[in-house]
């Protein structure tokens, strides 16, 4: 072992440690960046693990519909759109849509399947309910 190798070995054993103040500053940065990111996405650190992509999409839709008061109409319109699309793809005419599918649409929209619980995960519902 050369003198330089011995010097390196001594230096490796003298490990400088960061002070508590630096650790505190780094952690403050970590939480600030985390908070800023979660604020943008509408989440909070505590609830972050329970929110999914679907939840965020639904929250955005709720906002567009003017809040939860407009959600009933939004759900009905969405389901009607699905049925109209289905009817056209099956080769139905406009008359059939009006006479048959439209009635079926109302039947579904007034039943339990129009509730968010049939589409969303339970965690998303809990998250939305907390808004």
């Amino acid at each position, binding site marked *: 072992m050369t003198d*330089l190798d011995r*010097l*390196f070995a001594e*230096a490796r054993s003298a490990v400088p*440690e960061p002070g508590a103040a*630096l650790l505190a500053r780094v952690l403050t940065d970590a939480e600030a*960046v985390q908070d800023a*990111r979660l604020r943008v996405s509408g989440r909070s*650190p505590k609830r972050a693990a329970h929110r999914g992509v679907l939840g965020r999409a639904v929250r955005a839709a709720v906002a567009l519909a003017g809040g939860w008061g407009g959600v009933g109409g939004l759900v009905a319109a969405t389901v009607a759109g699905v049925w109209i699309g289905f009817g056209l793809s099956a080769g139905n005419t406009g008359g059939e849509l009006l006479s048959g599918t439209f009635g079926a649409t109302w039947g579904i929209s007034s039943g339990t399947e129009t509730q968010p619980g049939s589409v969303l995960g339970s965690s998303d519902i809990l998250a939305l309910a907390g808004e």
Partner: protein
Amino acid sequence: MTMAFDADNDVSDEALLGLYGNGDRRAARELTVRLTPLAFRVALRMLGDRAEAEDIAQEAMLRLWKVAPDWRRGEAQVSTWLYRVVTNLATDRLRRRRGVGLDEAPEIEDTSAGACAQMIEGDRMTALEGALAQLPARQRQAVVLRHLEGLSNPEIAAAMDIGVEAVESLTARGKRALAAILEGRRTELGYDDE
């Protein structure tokens, strides 16, 4: 401030970074405790100045927090990424400190002997810091990673974004230069008596 974090060593840095990106506060604390010492230690060994090393470590960790959501799993080790960021930031700092010429800077004892005395005990450590300060930045970077951090040549190549042969060349030249610088101080450093 109490910094009583759990030692959660079963979880990889990468997994913790994913948790951090999802808003996990505990992951933020664990990564802070796990990685800040590395960032600070490397910066200090590169710069020889505690205050500057703290700035670099904080900046490197801030970059880690910001990159967390975009981290691509399996592409690089978090520690390798951090080595790269810290050594690059420190190299930039060295170049600014040296101004127009890389080899015209004063030795470290001339500008920050007090800080050196705080961080490393003994004349030998001070001498090593002073000698490292005289190396060109890339040589110093390679020597610190190889001989003080104990990284392998492939790890250094990844951290410095160069080939393994280039690493070997840098460390060999750096080591030769250090030996030459310290040769005249063998007696002063007590090696003649051993």
